[in-house]
C-alpha cells in the first residue's frame, strides 16, 4: 500500500501543481467513517476564513485571483497570503465544491415516513441532485469560467475526485445500501448525469430552472430504463441457469 501510494503520488505529482492537499483527501474519501466524533472541518481555520470571505466576492469578480486577494484583505490578511493557495483560483472553486457538497447533509431533510411509506431512493437522489444544482445558483453566471478552470489538465484529477465524492455523498444521503458492483455503476452514472445537467444549467434561461429540472428528470428516467433492463436480464440469466442445473440434477446427473 505505501508503495502504490508513493508510486501514484510521484506520477500524479509531476502533473499537478500541489499534490500535497488533494492526495490525502482522496485517500480519506471512502475510508471508514466514524460516528463517534464530529468530522474535522475540510479546511484549516485560516484558509477557511480567507476562502469564505473570498467566496463572497465571487458573484462580482468571478472565480479569479482578485476575489481571493479581496477575500484575504477582508479577513485581515495580506494580499501575499494568497500564497496559501498554490492552486490559486482552483482552490476557490474547490472550496465551493467541497462546502456545497458537505452542506447537502443539512440542507436536504427527508420526512421520516409519509403515510407509512418511505420515500424511494430514486426520489431522494433526484431531490439531492436538484438541491446541489441549485446551490450553484448564486455563482451560476460565473460557473462557466469555473468549469473552464476545472477542465485544465492539471486540475482534471482533483475535479473528478470531487465529482466522485459528490456522487458518493448523494447516494449515501439517499440511503442506498448497495455493496456490490452496482455501488460503482450507480456512482459513475450519477456523476455523468450530474455533470451533464450542470453544464446544461449554465445555459438555462427558463424561469426557476424548470428546463434544468426537466433535463435532469429525463436523464434519470433513461438511467432507470437501462438499469431496469440490466436488472431483469441478470434475473433471467440467474433463473435460467439455476433451473437448468436443477433439471439436470433431477435427471440424475451428479453435478
Amino acid at each position: 500500500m505505501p508503495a502504490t501510494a508513493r508510486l501514484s503520488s510521484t506520477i500524479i505529482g509531476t502533473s499537478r501543481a500541489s499534490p500535497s492537499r488533494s492526495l490525502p483527501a482522496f485517500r480519506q474519501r471512502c475510508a471508514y467513517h466514524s460516528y463517534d466524533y464530529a468530522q474535522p472541518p475540510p479546511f484549516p481555520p485560516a484558509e477557511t476564513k480567507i476562502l469564505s470571505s473570498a467566496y463572497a466576492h465571487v458573484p462580482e469578480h468571478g472565480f479569479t485571483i482578485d476575489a481571493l486577494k479581496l477575500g484575504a484583505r477582508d479577513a485581515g490578511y495580506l494580499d501575499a497570503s494568497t500564497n496559501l493557495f498554490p492552486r490559486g483560483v482552483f482552490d476557490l472553486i474547490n472550496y465551493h465544491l467541497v462546502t456545497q457538497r458537505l452542506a447537502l447533509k443539512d440542507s436536504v431533510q427527508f420526512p421520516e415516513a409519509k403515510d407509512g411509506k418511505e420515500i424511494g431512493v430514486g426520489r431522494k437522489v433526484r431531490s439531492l441532485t436538484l438541491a446541489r444544482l441549485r446551490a450553484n445558483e448564486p455563482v451560476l453566471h460565473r460557473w462557466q469560467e469555473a468549469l473552464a478552470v476545472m477542465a485544465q489538465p492539471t486540475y482534471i484529477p482533483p475535479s473528478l475526485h470531487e465529482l466522485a465524492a459528490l456522487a458518493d455523498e448523494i447516494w449515501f444521503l439517499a440511503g442506498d445500501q448497495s455493496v456490490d458492483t452496482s455501488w460503482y455503476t450507480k456512482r459513475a452514472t450519477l456523476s455523468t448525469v450530474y455533470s451533464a445537467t450542470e453544464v446544461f444549467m449554465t445555459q438555462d434561461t427558463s424561469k426557476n430552472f424548470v428546463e434544468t429540472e426537466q433535463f435532469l428528470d429525463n436523464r434519470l428516467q433513461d438511467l432507470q430504463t437501462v438499469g431496469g433492463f440490466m436488472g431483469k436480464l441478470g434475473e433471467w440469466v440467474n433463473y435460467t441457469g439455476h433451473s437448468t442445473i436443477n433439471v439436470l440434477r433431477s435427471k440424475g446427473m451428479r453435478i
Partner: protein
Amino acid sequence: MSARILSPQTLARSHAPLLDFLAPRTIPSRTSPPSRQRQQLRRRRHHSTASPVGREASTQNHAPTPAQAAASSLAPPTNAATGPVSNASASTTSPPTSPRTTAPVHQLTPTQRAFLSSALRVNQTGELAAILIYAAQSPLLVRKHPHLRPLMKHMYDQEAGHYAFFNRVISKHRIRPTAMTPVWTAAASLLGWSTAFLGREAAMACTEAVETEIGTHYNEQVRVLLDWSAKCSERGESLGPELESLVAELRRIRDEELEHLDHAVENDAKEARPYEFLTEGIRAGCRGAIWVSERV
C-alpha cells in the same frame, strides 16, 4: 488445556503486549500436520462444538479472559483501560450500552481509517465468498450424505448472518465495496462446486482451508483493534463505542468461523486426497484474494 491457556498466570507469564486468548499462534498448529496435536485440539474443541449449550458454555469460559488479561498485565490503573476490553468481552450477543462517557473518543488517523476500510472490505468479501461456497457445496454433498444437511444449513445460516452484518457495517461507515465482486462470486461458486464434486472429504478440506485463513484474518484485526484500544487508554482516550462493539462482533464471528473449522476436521477433512495440495492451494488462493480485496 483450555484451562491452562486461559489462566491468568499463563497470560501474565507470556510477555506479549496483547493477550487475545486465541491469538494466531494457535492457528498454525491447528492445521499443521502433527496428528497428536490435532487430536488434542480436537478433543479440546470438541466439547465446545458439540451442542449449542456447550458452545454457550465455552464462550462463557472465554469471556472473562481478556478482562483478566487486562487486569493482570495491561492493567494501567485507570478505569478507561478496562472499559473497552471488558466491554468487548462482556457479551457476544448484546451490544455494549453507552460505555465510557468520561474518556474522550480517539479520532482515527488516516492510516487507521485506511486499515479499517480495507479490513472490513475483506471481511465482507470473505463472507460473500463463504456463503457462495456453502451454497454451491450443499446440494451435491447433501445428496450423497443426507446426514450433513443440518450441518451445512447451520454453517450457511451463520455465514449469511455474518454477511448481513458486514454489509450493514460497510454501507453505514461508507466503505467502498470491492470492485472484484463478480470475479469472487464466480471463483467462490466454482471452488465450492468443484470441491463438493470431488467428495465429502475434499469439500471439508476446502472448508478447513478457507476458515483457517479467515480465522487468521479476523484474529489480526482483533489484535490490531485491541492494540489501538490499549494505546488509547494509555493516553486517557477511549476507542469509542463503535469500535468497541466491532471488536466484540469480530470475536464472535471469529469463534464461529473456527467452529466451522472444527466441524470440517470432524468430518474427515484430513482424509482428502491430495490433502496438502488441496488445502495449500486453497489457502494460497484465499490469501491472494485477501491481498487483492484489501486494495481494489
